[in-house]
């Protein structure tokens, strides 16, 4: 009779324990900066640069394409429909609130989670399964220093930069869409810039940092706690992406709840 309740309780306790383990991992990663040996910083910087190259630079075309298509579609439809109601002034709010502040950070973080989160989790899970993490420990190299910290920082920098890119591309594509619907450039930029406040900029910046930290932490966490040998690697990658996406959506909802 009580078995289902007990099973539910066990499952919940396991989930809470995992969140706690993830929180401890995040804290250890952040504080590991203080103990990184001076010589190790050179190596960590090189890994950081490689990760930024893969996570940010190589994702630029994808972000440009998605940002411009999304913005073009939304703004061209909005100009047409709102024009009928003589309410084209609202496209500024639409652009800033819906695209720059909400969809830009959300979609960018999802792109990075899907693209680089999988790669990070797979790489670290393989490192673990192949005994490389054990070997690093044996050499006196903290895996947090060598594997996690550079990827964590690269995740933050990459997501932040890509969000800035996405938002700028979206504004530019919106301008093209508005122009195609007959709106003058001066009016478009006047509407958009009047709707854009300092609070929107700060919220976007903050989201970039938080989403970047999620993408930099969750895949490393899942990669390093892989179980079951080589067959655990894809499981680990899958869990990393699912958990990252969930955390990004929860984070986004939390931002909306706190900011409104």
């Amino acid at each position, binding site marked *: 009779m009580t078995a289902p309740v007990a099973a539910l309780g066990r499952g919940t306790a396991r989930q809470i324990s995992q969140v706690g383990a993830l929180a401890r991992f995040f804290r250890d990663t952040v504080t590991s900066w203080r103990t990184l040996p001076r010589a190790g910083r050179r190596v960590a910087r090189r890994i950081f640069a490689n990760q930024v190259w893969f996570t940010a630079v190589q994702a630029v075309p994808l972000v440009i394409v998605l940002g411009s298509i999304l913005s073009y579609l939304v703004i061209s439809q909005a100009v047409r429909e709102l024009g009928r109601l003589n309410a084209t002034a609202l496209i500024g709010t639409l652009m800033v609130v819906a695209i720059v502040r909400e969809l830009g950070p959300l979609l960018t973080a999802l792109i990075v989670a899907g693209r680089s989160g999988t790669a990070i989790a797979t790489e670290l899970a393989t490192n673990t399964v192949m005994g490389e993490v054990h070997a690093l420990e044996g*050499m006196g190299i903290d895996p947090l220093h060598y594997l996690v910290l550079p990827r964590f920082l690269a995740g933050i920098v990459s997501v932040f930069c890509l969000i800035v890119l996405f938002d700028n591309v979206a504004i530019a594509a919106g301008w093209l869409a508005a122009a195609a619907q007959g709106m003058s450039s001066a009016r478009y930029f006047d509407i958009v810039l009047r709707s854009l406040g300092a609070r929107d900029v700060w919220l976007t910046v903050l989201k970039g940092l938080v989403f970047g930290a999620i993408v930099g932490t969750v895949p490393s966490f899942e990669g390093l706690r892989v179980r079951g040998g080589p067959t655990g690697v894809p499981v680990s990658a899958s869990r990393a992406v699912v958990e990252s996406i969930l955390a990004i959506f929860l984070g986004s909802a939390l931002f909306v709840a706190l900011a409104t």
Partner: protein
Amino acid sequence: MTPPLAFDAVPLGAADAAFSLTVTPHAVTTVVGDAASGVGGLAALALGMTRPTAGRALVFGEDVAAMPRRQVLAFRRRVGYVPAGGGLLQNLSLADNVALPLRFGSALSHREIAGRLRMMLALGGLADAGALRPAAADEELRRRASVVRALAFDPELVLLDRPFDGVSARVAGDLLQLLRGGEGGGGSRRTIFITAQDVPDRLRPRIDARWRVVRGVLQADQ
């Protein structure tokens, strides 16, 4: 004189039998046993990577498992370690693998590291293979690289788990010679502790102390 390595009643293997052994300095010591004997975990115990549920493992008289994390990492750099399989990083070349401990944990300049790396690769018979990734190298080259990497800081003590798996007796002999690092202190210059399931017959005369764990009991390996 403090022994370089000592196990004091640590539970070992499925039998959880108390294992005690003091390793003689400047000697090559082997402890062999089947997979269930737990001998493969002795090096990890010594380096504090796994904590014994009872007893102590002492390296140079220090209980590594009881040290704070930062101190543990610095301490491990004093000891060479070759895990089972070698533990080479697959995304680095053999040369970069060998250089990694120096690049990460020493104050040497780029030039000094490059010079030392050239010397180490030549010593390990890897002079022409440094650019290969582990996946592109054969087992012998991978074994050589993992042994040379363990010697990066010229340690007094080297711990190895199954270092001769997959290589010929000749190569195993070469590796052992490399590990000894010449003669000193009335024997090998370094203290070498090897765990394995077995040791090639040809190597036995060159091993100073041979032990075997049978059903949890440590006995001399004849």
